[in-house]
C-alpha cells in the first residue's frame, strides 16, 4: 500500500491521461487556437542520464518552477478563450495542475523559490495545441520521473 496518494501510481496516471485528453481535444483546433499573446512554458525535454545525476533539489526546482509556469499560463489562457469545449480543457487542466502541486507538497520536497538562472531556458508558445502538448510532455516526463524516484526512496 502506498504511503502517500502520490505514490499510488494510479493517481499520477490519472493526471497524465487527462493531460492527453486535453492534448487530443486541441486537435480540433484550427486558427481559433492561435493565441494573441506568447506564453512562457518550462521545457519538458529530459536527458535521462543528466536528470538522474541532478541532485534532488535541482530536480525539485525544475518541477516547482514548471508547475508555477503552467498555472500562470492557464490563467492567462483562460482570459483568451471563449469556446466552451476549450474552456472546459483549460479549467480542468488548471484544477489538475493545482492538485498535482498539492500532492507534490506531500513529498516534503522543499519548495524552491527558483532563481531562474539555473533552470532550463523556457519555451515560448503561441498556440493552444502546443501549450497542451508541452503540458502533457512535462507531466509524463519530469513530474513522473521525479515522483517515481521520490516514492522509491520512500519505500526504503
Amino acid at each position, binding site marked *: 500500500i*502506498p504511503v502517500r496518494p502520490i505514490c499510488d501510481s*494510479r493517481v499520477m496516471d*490519472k493526471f497524465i491521461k*487527462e493531460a492527453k485528453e486535453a492534448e487530443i481535444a486541441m486537435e480540433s483546433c484550427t486558427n481559433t487556437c492561435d493565441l494573441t499573446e506568447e506564453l512562457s512554458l518550462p521545457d519538458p525535454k529530459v536527458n535521462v542520464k543528466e536528470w538522474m545525476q541532478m541532485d534532488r533539489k535541482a530536480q525539485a526546482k525544475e518541477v516547482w518552477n514548471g508547475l508555477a509556469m503552467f498555472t500562470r499560463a492557464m490563467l492567462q489562457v*483562460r482570459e483568451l478563450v471563449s469556446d466552451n469545449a476549450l474552456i472546459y480543457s483549460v*479549467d480542468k487542466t488548471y*484544477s489538475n495542475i*493545482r492538485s498535482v502541486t*498539492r500532492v507534490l507538497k*506531500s513529498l516534503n520536497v522543499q519548495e524552491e523559490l527558483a532563481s531562474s538562472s539555473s533552470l532550463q531556458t523556457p519555451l515560448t508558445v503561441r498556440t493552444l495545441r502546443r501549450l497542451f502538448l508541452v503540458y502533457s510532455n512535462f507531466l509524463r516526463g519530469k513530474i513522473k520521473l521525479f515522483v517515481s524516484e521520490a516514492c522509491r526512496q520512500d519505500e526504503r
Partner: protein
Amino acid sequence: DDIFRRKASILISQESEYIKCFTQILEDLTCFWEDEKESTAAEQLPYSFYYQEEGKDEKACILSIQQTAAKTMYYICSFPMEDVTLFTTLSLKIKSVHGESILRQRSLLVDQVVILDAPSNVSVQINWTRQLVIRWHPPDFKHLQDSIMYEVNISTSDVQKVEVIMEKTELVLPNVKGHTTYTIAVRAKPNEISFNGYWSDWSEPVTVVT
C-alpha cells in the same frame, strides 16, 4: 435535480456533519445543508457561503435552494470546476447574510468525499461447477476505475451475506445450493487508498434461480 436528491439522501444517512459535501467524478463538488426552519418566500437568502483553499483567498459561492420532502430547505453550493482541487484542505463557512457572523464551519479534502454512481449491468451466471459468476460494470470514475471497491449483497430467503471485492468487477461464488432464488445487488466506493467517500446506492437487484 434528481441526481442531487439521490446523492443527498446517501449523505443524510451516512454523514453527521452539518455541512455535507460530495464529488462524483472529482471534477465537481457540491456542498449543502438543510435548514430546519420552514422556508419563507423572502427574496433574499438568509445565508451566505464561503470557501477557502489553503493559501488562497476566500471566495463566495452563489447558493441555490431546493425544497425538501419535509418542506424545509436545502441550501446548495455547486463549485466551479477550476476551484475543485484534490489533496488540499478546503475550509467552508456559512455566514448569516446580516452581521457576518459565522454560523457553521467545516474543513474537508475533496478526494475524501466521493459518491460514485451505483454499479450497472449486473449479471449472474451459473457455470458447470455450480458456481455463481457475478459481474458488473464499474461506475464512471475518470481513469480511476481500478481504484474502486465493491460490496456484493447476496441474499436468499434464508440468509444474506455481503462480500467485499477490491478493484475487480467479478465475484465467483462457489458451492451454491440448488433450487434456490438468489438476489444480488452491488454498490461501490473508492478503495480508500488515495480516494475515499461514501457507499453508492445499491445497483438494481438481479435475481437468479439455481
